[in-house]
Structures are given as structure tokens and as C-alpha cells.
């Protein structure tokens, strides 16, 4: 395990997107509760994996932590600073410490700029160095992510998906951040390329002591890369534990169902694997179920689950879960 200092503390973070009606006078008729009262910590130098199915609010959580979306309520602390309070210039300065790697390498690079311009833009925005120094730094960054500095004058469309993702990584590293949110950085890539990018991220973490929030829906990839793993369902974090603990002793019924879906790369065992098949669909986040959000699909649900929202508590050292049955 990494050193125990907390880098990011997320406290009851909530992000609701309003649903409006009306053409000229817009009324709020409801809200999509994308993220609802989520609390966790990210420790210095660790990788926190965040898994969950599509639409459960993983990406929104990452973006809200970085203040790309302003939270509806709740706090995000970076060290001692409360990011939700920061505005304008202060927030801009803070951005040097945290960066993001995006999911779609085809959409995350401006097609009209050269690689050199894309990677040096963070330096320009924060007025670091002069043109020549920036140019040198860009070449250094390109080497760092395994690209030839000769590619500095080329445009994004001349690169493959994996190379583009490396450019995205170089851009994120340009300001020497401590904390990087990786928003499904490999899900848009070929399987053969995924490993390369993940290895690159691991190498960079080791070299620069980076802290990652690694968002993914590929459970085995998260198992590989993360130190601790959080599981999200319908805007809530339902379970958070160290990697081995979570994968060997999942406590929440949703986590158990999720993990049972992972194929085992051994035909003799794979045949005996017990799948927990969940019934029904994920409810709409605009109108989440009362009580525990998982209860309509939970095979173990009892009366209290339908009425009372389970408390987020630490049931074993470093193992948090929100379930009445645990």
C-alpha cells in the first residue's frame, strides 16, 4: 500500500442535472441525480479504481471532483483547499495540480492544432517558459509517453488511437500535476493497445508519484491497476475496499453480481462459475427508488431496504459498504 496521506477528500458530493420544461420561461421539473452524496478519499500515490455500469455516474464523479461540473452540494478537498469554493484565477492555478485523461482519443484532441500546439497549450495558458523552452518541453513530454519528437508538427488525424491517447497523456502531464483523473482511458482502444497504455500510465505513476482516479467498466483492468476499488451504482458508491479485499470478499450484493460476471480465464473453472443474474433494468436516475437504490433488483432485499437508505460505513478496516445486510 502507498503512503497514508490523503490527497483528495470527497465529502457528500452531489451533482444533479436539472430537467427543464418551457420555451421562454423555463421551469425545473426534476433533476437527474447523477451523483448523490458520495464520500471517499484518495490517498497520495495510490490508484483508486472506480467501476460501475454505463450511466451510473462514474464520469460525472470524476468531472465534478475536477470542477468541470460544479457540484450541486458537497465538498471536494485537495489537501486543505476546498475546490468547490474556488473561482476564476484561484481555480485556474489549482488546475495545474490536477488533470484529466479522456475516454475518446478521437474527440479529445483539437483536429486543427498540431501535436506540438496541443501539448504546449497548458504551458501557454499558464505562461510557463518562452516559446523555445516550451518547444523543448513538448519534445521531452513526447519522448516520455513513447512518441517520437519528430511528430511535433503533425496533426491528430495522422495518428492511431493508441498514439492519440499518448498525446492526451502528454498534455495531461505538461503541467506536472499530482492528481490525474483517467476517464475510461482505454475503453476506446484495441485490446492490444490497452495494455500498452495501461503500462505507460503505471510507469508514469512510478516516475512522478502520480495519484490516479481510474474510471473504467472493465473489472479485470481495474483489478490490475488499482490499489483500492470503489463500486458505483445509480449515483451512489456502494462499496469501497482494497483491491484484493473487494475482489475476494465482496460484501454488497451488487458488487457480488458484478464480479460474478467476470469470466475466468480457465475453462475448467469457467464452466462452474456461478453467475448472479440481476433482474430488471437500472432505474432512471431522474427518479431513483426510495431506500436503498439497489433494492428493486437486489436478490436479498428485505423490508428495511425499501424504506431506509443504508448508511455508508466502514465494516472492516479499509472496507466501506452501504448495505443493511452487512
Amino acid at each position, binding site marked *: 500500500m502507498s503512503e497514508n496521506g490523503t490527497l483528495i477528500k470527497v465529502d457528500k458530493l452531489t451533482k444533479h442535472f436539472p430537467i427543464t420544461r418551457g420555451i421562454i420561461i423555463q421551469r425545473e421539473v426534476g433533476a437527474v441525480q447523477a451523483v448523490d452524496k458520495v464520500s471517499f478519499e484518495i490517498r497520495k500515490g495510490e490508484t483508486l479504481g472506480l467501476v460501475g455500469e454505463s450511466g451510473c455516474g462514474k464520469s460525472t464523479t470524476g468531472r465534478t471532483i475536477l470542477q468541470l461540473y460544479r457540484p450541486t452540494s458537497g465538498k471536494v478537498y485537495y489537501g486543505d483547499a476546498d475546490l468547490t469554493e474556488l473561482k476564476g484565477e484561484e481555480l485556474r492555478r489549482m488546475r495545474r495540480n490536477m488533470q484529466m485523461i479522456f475516454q475518446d482519443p478521437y474527440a479529445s484532441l483539437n483536429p486543427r492544432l498540431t501535436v506540438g500546439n496541443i501539448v504546449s*497549450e497548458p504551458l501557454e495558458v499558464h505562461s510557463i517558459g518562452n516559446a523555445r523552452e516550451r518547444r523543448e518541453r513538448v519534445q521531452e513530454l513526447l519522448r516520455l509517453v513513447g512518441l517520437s519528437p*519528430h511528430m511535433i508538427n503533425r496533426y491528430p488525424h495522422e495518428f492511431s488511437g493508441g498514439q492519440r491517447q499518448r498525446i492526451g497523456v502528454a498534455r495531461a502531464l505538461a503541467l506536472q500535476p499530482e492528481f490525474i483523473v483517467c476517464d475510461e482511458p482505454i475503453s476506446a482502444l484495441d485490446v492490444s493497445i490497452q495494455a500498452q497504455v495501461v503500462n505507460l500510465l503505471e510507469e508514469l505513476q512510478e516516475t512522478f508519484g502520480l495519484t490516479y482516479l481510474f474510471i473504467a467498466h472493465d473489472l479485470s483492468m481495474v483489478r490490475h491497476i488499482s490499489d483500492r476499488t470503489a463500486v458505483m451504482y445509480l449515483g451512489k458508491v456502494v462499496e469501497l475496499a482494497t483491491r484484493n479485499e473487494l475482489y475476494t470478499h465482496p460484501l454488497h450484493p451488487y458488487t457480488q453480481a458484478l464480479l460474478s460476471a467476470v469470466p475466468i480465464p480457465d475453462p475448467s473453472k469457467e464452466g462452474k462459475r456461478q453467475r448472479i443474474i440481476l433482474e430488471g433494468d437500472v432505474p432512471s436516475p431522474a427518479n431513483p427508488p426510495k431506500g436503498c437504490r439497489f433494492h428493486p433488483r437486489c436478490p436479498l432485499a428485505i423490508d428495511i431496504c425499501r424504506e431506509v437508505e443504508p448508511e455508508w460505513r466502514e465494516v472492516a478496516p479499509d472496507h466501506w459498504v452501504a448495505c443493511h445486510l452487512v
Partner: protein
Amino acid sequence: MAESVALDQPLDESTARKGRSPGQDAWREFRRNRIGVAGLIFIIFIILVAIFAPLMSPYGYATQNNLNSRAKPMTAYTITTDYLPNCHWAGTPLEWGCTIFFTGSDALGRDLWSRTVYGTRVSISIALVASTVSLLIGSIYGTVSGYAGGRIDNFMMRIVDFLYAVPILPLIILMQVYFKALARQGVREGLTGAIIELNQQMGGMLFLFIALGALNWIGMSRMARGQVLSYKNKEFIEAAHMIGASNSRIIFRHLMPNILGPLLIAETLAIPGYIFTEAVLSFIGLGVNPPTPSWGQMISEGYQGLRSNPHLVLVPGAALTILTLAFNFMGDGLRDAFDPKLRGRK
């Protein structure tokens, strides 16, 4: 090539191959489109004609003599001394040229060729100014509206909807009639006087500029807004927010270069419409002031004698047709080059 160079060696900038930008790619694609290139070349030629009109016309566009009324093309007529000071071709006096009108003359004995050549000035300035004005206003308005989003967007777009509902062409006609009446009365004071004066200086084109610009920025702003909306939520815009780029930087460095292509194409394809609108307004007498030659006005003056003197309509009519076609071909070529998906099957 890249593989042969050691990664840890300092880079000599000169060996780094320059990539091709999407714009350069589009230009290469455009050059392959023969009709589009022909259109572009013709437009450049017409712009040169407009700039060097005095060198390309043997007589002045306003020189007149009733003896030469409605001269047939290429026939010899008595050129009186009125014409002689202007009688030259590319600066050298023309002995023989001063006895004929290449394409005939109009009812007042003015050389039709010279008038057609000077007419390019009106058409080209309308094309360039009206398109620039509507592109500038429309793209800025639409970009701001789309980028701001929410209430501001709603408000700005309702204004556009409102303007769409106002019949602008009749409004322009009224405005023209009003200012022309004032000009006839000789109003010289205040803002109105200044506007009329400026309009006179420009041969009556100021109101055309205003009219066409006001008529067309609306559609352009809607289009710009649509483009911005389609790009605004792309991840590279989010990435720009993430590195702390300012709004103006995001708009001008990330949004504008991406949305400008389609807007430019739409604007190029709208230019024939501007030229036609000018011709229509001049045809009904609300365009440029006489004696400034405009193709629409020339057609209007010539069509009464269409049967006996068809050249009075055919010459400016042909010029108008070819120029609008050239803009259309160029616009089509540009569109195909920028958006290969729209290209017709070959």
C-alpha cells in the same frame, strides 16, 4: 523515418516533417475539382477586372452622345470628341477602337462594354462586403449564443426568431425609398445627412450593403450556433477547460477554427443570392444611383427594347449569369473538399 532516429537525441527542428492540417487537405482536395477551380479563377479574374476597370474599358461608363444611341455591336459609328479623352485600351490610345463599340451602346449612347466592366465593381463589392458583414455578425452572434447556452442562448435566439418573422425585404425597400426621397430634398444635416452623403459617395451602395448584411446574418448566426453546439461538448473543449484556458481562448482557438469551414462554404454559396438581390433591387430602381452602372440596372434599362436591341440585356445578363455560376461552382467545390461525405458519386 522516425524509427531511425534515437529518441533521446535532441531534435533538430528542420528534420521534423510538417503534417498536413485539415485545411491543407481540403485545399488539395479542392484543387482536384476542375469546375470549382475554374470558378475560382474566373472570380479572381473578375476581381482584377473590377480593380482595373479603367484600363479595361475604352470609354468612360458615363460618356454619352445621342447620335450613337443603341449602337449595334461591332459596327462603326461616329465617335465624337466627347469620347476621345477616354478612348484608350490599357493606357494606349486606340485609333481604330475609337470608331466602334465592341458590344454596342445603350439608349444614351454609352458604351455597353465599359458599363459592363464597371458593373463588376458593384457586383464584386456587394459579394465581398455583404458576405463579410453577414459572416462576421452571424458567426460572432451565433457562437456567443451557442457557447453561453441556457438563458442567454434562449434570449438571443428568440431575437433571431423575431427578426426572421419581420419581412425584411419590404423594410429595405421602404428604407431605400425614404432615404432616396430625403436625398432628393437635399437634406444635409445631422446623422441622416451624413448617411445620405456617404451613400452618395458610394454610388448608392451603402444601403445595399446594410440591407444584404441585415438580411443574411440571421441565417448565418443560426448555423454558427448549431456548429458550436455540436462542438461545445466535445472532449477537446473539456480538455481546454481542464488546462485552465479562458473562454475567449476556447472560442477563438478551439471553436472558431473548427466551425469556420462550413460557415465559409455556406457564405460562398449565398453570394449568388446577394448579387441577384442587388440586381433585383437595381432592376426595380432601388439599387445603386445612376449613372453608376450595375448589371441589374442595365437589364432594367434595356429590356423595353428587347426585341430590336437584345444586346442591351444579353451582355449584362450573361455577365451576371456567369459570375453567379462561378460562385456556385466554387462553393460546391469547397463544400465537397471540406466535407467529403456530401460529395456526389463520381
